[in-house]
């Protein structure tokens, strides 16, 4: 009985410790963003919104934030369409060597993203295309498509093919069957992958590092450059804004298109 209580206590203690380990850095960022002193101080000496004022008043940060959102949105759309199509092809296409193709599709996850960025940078130089926006989006897609492939393959794995046969039998053409039955049922996996894609793109540093053009930088790059010369609460404010934006997008996607569903992920 006693050992049971001790076990339970240890179990809870470990859980809380992990939770604290994950959340404390975020809490410190919030403290940093709201504290009037221009350096990290604990305990905080007061509450101010001046760093937020400074962040939103900075044209540099604002254009970086907008660019990050734009790139993340384009990446999410492209990676979701590409990744879901690839997963469908792998799962349904009867292609020989589909395991190998899956491994290749997922390989950007294993590769250090900085190498992906460097390789793309050299490719663009060789192609002599400069550093266009689409170049950045392509780079982000490369590291986000694997997430969509993975989550979509997971739902396709448990998909009952008889549901599609039932739709065909009732008179639905293959296209109609896809939009009426297949897509709605794999949607949770596709959306989950899309959310990963958004977050990975929005926070992307190593790939962007090589692909942004000077004066046209994404938020993580701008923050890094700022950090090199200044350290004040603006960084904290910028971090808080980007955390809240990411959370907002995730919740928004969940509410509108729905993550939880009749299909188990």
């Amino acid at each position, binding site marked *: 009985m006693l050992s049971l209580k001790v076990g339970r206590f240890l179990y809870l203690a470990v859980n809380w410790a992990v939770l604290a380990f994950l959340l404390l850095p975020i809490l410190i960022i919030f403290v940093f963003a709201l504290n009037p002193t221009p350096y990290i101080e604990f305990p905080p000496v007061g509450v101010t919104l001046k760093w937020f004022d400074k962040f939103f008043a900075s044209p540099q940060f604002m254009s970086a934030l907008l660019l990050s959102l734009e790139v993340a949105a384009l990446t999410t759309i492209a990676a979701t369409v590409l990744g879901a199509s690839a997963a469908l092809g792998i799962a349904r296409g009867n292609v020989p060597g589909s395991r190998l193709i899956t491994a290749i599709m997922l390989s950007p996850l294993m590769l250090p993203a900085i190498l992906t960025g460097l390789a793309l940078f050299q490719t663009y130089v060789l192609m002599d295309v400069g550093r266009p926006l689409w170049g950045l989006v392509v780079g982000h897609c490369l590291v986000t498509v694997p997430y969509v492939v993975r989550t979509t393959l997971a739902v396709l794995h448990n998909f009952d093919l008889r549901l599609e046969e039932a739709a065909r039998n009732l008179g639905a053409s293959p296209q*109609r069957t896809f939009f009426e039955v297949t897509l709605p049922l794999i949607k949770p996996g596709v959306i989950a992958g899309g959310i990963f894609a958004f977050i990975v793109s929005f926070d992307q540093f190593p790939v962007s590092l090589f692909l942004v053009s000077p004066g046209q930088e994404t938020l993580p790059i701008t923050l890094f450059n700022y950090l090199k010369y200044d350290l004040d609460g603006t960084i904290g404010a910028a971090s808080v804004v980007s955390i809240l934006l990411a959370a907002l997008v995730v919740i928004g996607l969940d509410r509108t298109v729905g993550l939880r569903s009749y299909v188990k992920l």
Partner: protein
Amino acid sequence: MSARIEIVGVSKSYDGAARAVDDIHMTIEPGEFFSLLGPSGCGKTTTLRMIAGFEMPSEGIIRVGGQDITRVPAHKRDMGMVFQNYALFPHRTVRENVAFGLRMRKMPRAAIAKKVDEALAMVALTGFEDRMPGQLSGGQQQRVALARAIVIEPRVLLCDEPLGALDKKLRQSMQFELKQLQKTLGVTLVFVTHDQEEALAMSDRIAVLSRGKVEQVGTPTEIYDRPATRFVADFIGETNLFRGELVGTDGAPALRVDGHLTLALPAADGLSGAISVGLRPEKVRLTPGGAGAQAQGTVESANFQGGHVLYRIALAGNRHVLAQSPNDGSGAPLAAGTPVSLGWTPADLVILKD
């Protein structure tokens, strides 16, 4: 509304492997309740899937209502199908599930609503329109699947072991309902099952399949009383199988099974060489003691089954025969060790092809 289905020389093989379906010929009449019966792997489901258009025959032709549909895609075949485990769309309500086929046929909204109501009333599910399939019991899901299939008024209704997942009581009542519904609608129904009792109880005619080939096509009584092959005799119900050499004359043929047992056969033409015969347990009459019957033996065990008793009788030469006697209420079954004589008429013996 209902249509004749003709299956002409249809075969199906996958990647050059052994044929899952091997040169099948059958004609299913309009309005008929036709069962494809056999053990798993006999090709019955593959045959059904070829009729539905989910598989293409490697060889042969399938005609429905006189029209060759072998290469017509599944969604243009105008057939209803009830799947094993029902295959209801989990993301749609009962109403949307049933309406699906009508919506694909571009029927106006009001007409769809009316038809869906009628179909749900027919399967006694009025009031369940807005439930999701996950909220229904197995029997209710079964009814939705049925309503979804019949609401499009198909020429042909295909059922792939539709009652397999239900418990025994429910299965029996669904058997009656399905049969009744099929009669009311007059639709041609092709029913796949591995359950011989189900096939015997429901079908107008049955095709027994084994290893991709048709063993026999006939009415339930034909299949049971006059099985054509050893496989059919063995697969449908209990049967005593004997194999031996043909002896005796043309007018009075007999089968010498072994040194102890020779069976008088019904007169038949073209018999020669080694022959198998089947004898149903209920055709064997048991008389305690006695002599002068077809064979003598002793009761080895008696299996009381309520309405009847199934005896295992030991014959000379280490041979056993099953005999079934109705429970006439005269008391306890014959005890083990009781000597009995076994009687039957030669016409009860069915000559079987291998």
